[in-house]
């Protein structure tokens, strides 16, 4: 481990009524690395995500985010939208949540809302059309264009997002999250529903985000070929508890992990072992 982690989750607990979805979970995500959160269905992965991104308020524990400038933010104390705005944590959703009636470009413009709001002087300056806002808007369009290029959707910039094919929507959602210029990108099953070729493209995209932009990534994923290929660090959960962590190799050989998958779903266990070898 080099340097201080960007995200440290410490003894995170989330209860829904009497059900404990996540219990005393501690892990860290390193800066400029890809950390994967895996585990069988119902292990509590998405709950962890929702706690990190502020959609749930954790019942206990702490979540710390350390920015590059050394500022440390307690995420469990921030409200939902402030986590994206101030802590710079962006996320995607398991069941894609684009703005279907808006074009791809508009989706990416909405992602730059806070920067553009500042530039438009909380709308008032923008309304009278000051030049500084126009430059800001031009820059925003440039950033959006760059991301459309990266995810290979430039030619469809002016089409409604709702018309996109599934794989394209997934990539657009990642591009939208990246347009918020996040410090930490959280992806909830980005490879779900993608075919093999698209999965490979996704891996490439995520690696380029890490390598070229240095954005830290935390992802939940079931597709082990993606997880094993791109992750620097893997955290394995089952029944709300962390059962293992380590490099892809360490995790793959961990008997507890195999047992967890075997105990729930043979196919998934087979997938873990197969894709890892």
């Amino acid at each position, binding site marked *: 481990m080099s340097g201080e982690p960007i995200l440290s989750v410490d003894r995170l607990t989330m209860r829904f009524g009497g059900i404990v979805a996540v219990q005393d979970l501690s892990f860290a995500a390193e800066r400029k690395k890809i950390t994967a959160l895996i585990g069988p269905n119902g292990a509590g992965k*998405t709950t962890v995500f*929702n706690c990190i991104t502020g*959609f749930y308020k954790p019942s206990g524990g702490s979540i710390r985010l350390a920015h590059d400038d050394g500022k440390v933010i307690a995420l469990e104390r921030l409200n939902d939208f402030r986590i994206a705005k101030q802590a710079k944590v962006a996320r995607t*959703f398991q069941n894609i949540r684009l703005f279907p009636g808006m074009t791809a470009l508009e989706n990416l413009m909405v992602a730059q809302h806070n920067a553009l709001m500042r530039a438009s002087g909380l709308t008032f300056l923008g309304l009278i059309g000051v030049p500084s806002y126009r430059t800001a808007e031009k820059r925003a369009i440039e950033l959006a264009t760059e991301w459309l290029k990266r995810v290979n959707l430039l030619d469809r910039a002016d089409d409604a997002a709702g018309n996109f094919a599934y794989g394209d929507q997934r990539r657009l959602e990642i591009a939208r999250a990246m347009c918020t210029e996040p410090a930490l990108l959280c992806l909830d099953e980005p490879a779900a529903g993608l075919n093999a070729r698209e999965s490979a493209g996704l891996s490439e995209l995520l690696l380029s985000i890490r390598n070229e932009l240095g954005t830290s990534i935390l992802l939940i994923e079931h597709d082990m070929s993606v997880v094993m290929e791109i992750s620097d660090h893997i955290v394995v959960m089952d029944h709300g508890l962390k059962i293992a962590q380590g490099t892809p190799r360490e995790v793959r050989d961990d008997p507890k992990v195999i047992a967890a998958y075997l105990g729930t779903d043979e196919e998934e266990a087979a997938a873990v072992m197969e894709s890892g070898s």
Partner: protein
Amino acid sequence: MDYFAQQLINGLVLGSIYGLIAIGYTMVYGIVGMINFAHGDIFMIGGFIALITFLILISLGLTAIPVILLVVLLVSMAITALYGWTIERIAYRPLRHSFRLAPMLSAIGMSFVLTNYSQVAQGARVKPIPPFIIGGYTLHESADGFVIQLSNIQIMVVLTTIALLGIFTWLVSRTRLGRDMRACEQDQTMAALLGVDVDRTISMTFVIGAALAAVAGLMYLLYYGLVDFFMGFVAGIKAFTAAVLGGIGSLPGAMLGGLAIGLIETFWSAYFSVEYKDVAAFSILIVVLIFMPTGLLGRPEVEKV
């Protein structure tokens, strides 16, 4: 204290009427997810039909009041239910899978139609009837001469409401129709796949809601001794407020909300000012929703992320 007790009785009676109308709102909302703005006018139509049936029966020379009441109840329930059925068929069914606002505007349009229809058909003037059910009981007489009255009409309204609620609860929880209704409420597509006739179930929901509104209309007629073409709007909004207050979609909630609105209105009129009774009812709705965004008995909305 005596004054309070008297107002409590009055409030419960008014609340029962609101509750009966509110059930119609909440049922329709639960099953098709729309605000049936015409429901208040269905209540008004029910009142009118009851009034006309009364007139006919009396002019036919009937004198046995229980018989008259029974016939009036059945006739107004039947015809009003047919109104409910027809309206669903004409104005809502074609829009069932449409956008959310389309059926609502259609319902507002239907409400205008019904209000204006009865204005044209029966004239704009208030229609009074002589009191049918007279007498009552003096529950308590205090030293300063204040009496707590419980009139026979009040007893009748409350008893009818309780009886209808019993039948209705049985219908929803024990019968095939009730099971179909609950199934449609959960998932119409799945219910249809499992052999539930969704169209018929929804029609029946409107029919039952309208029949209950007709009973409320009859009660209103007996209790206040008059009907007019515009009474559906205010009563409808109040009842809808009651349904939301109780938690829309919840049947016990509708009744509870109805009672709450009835009591708030009565007590506010009694202790503060009559003019602001509706303001009080609406304000309390807003306050309750601020603290309990899904009403008193509504299921908290779980946000799926």
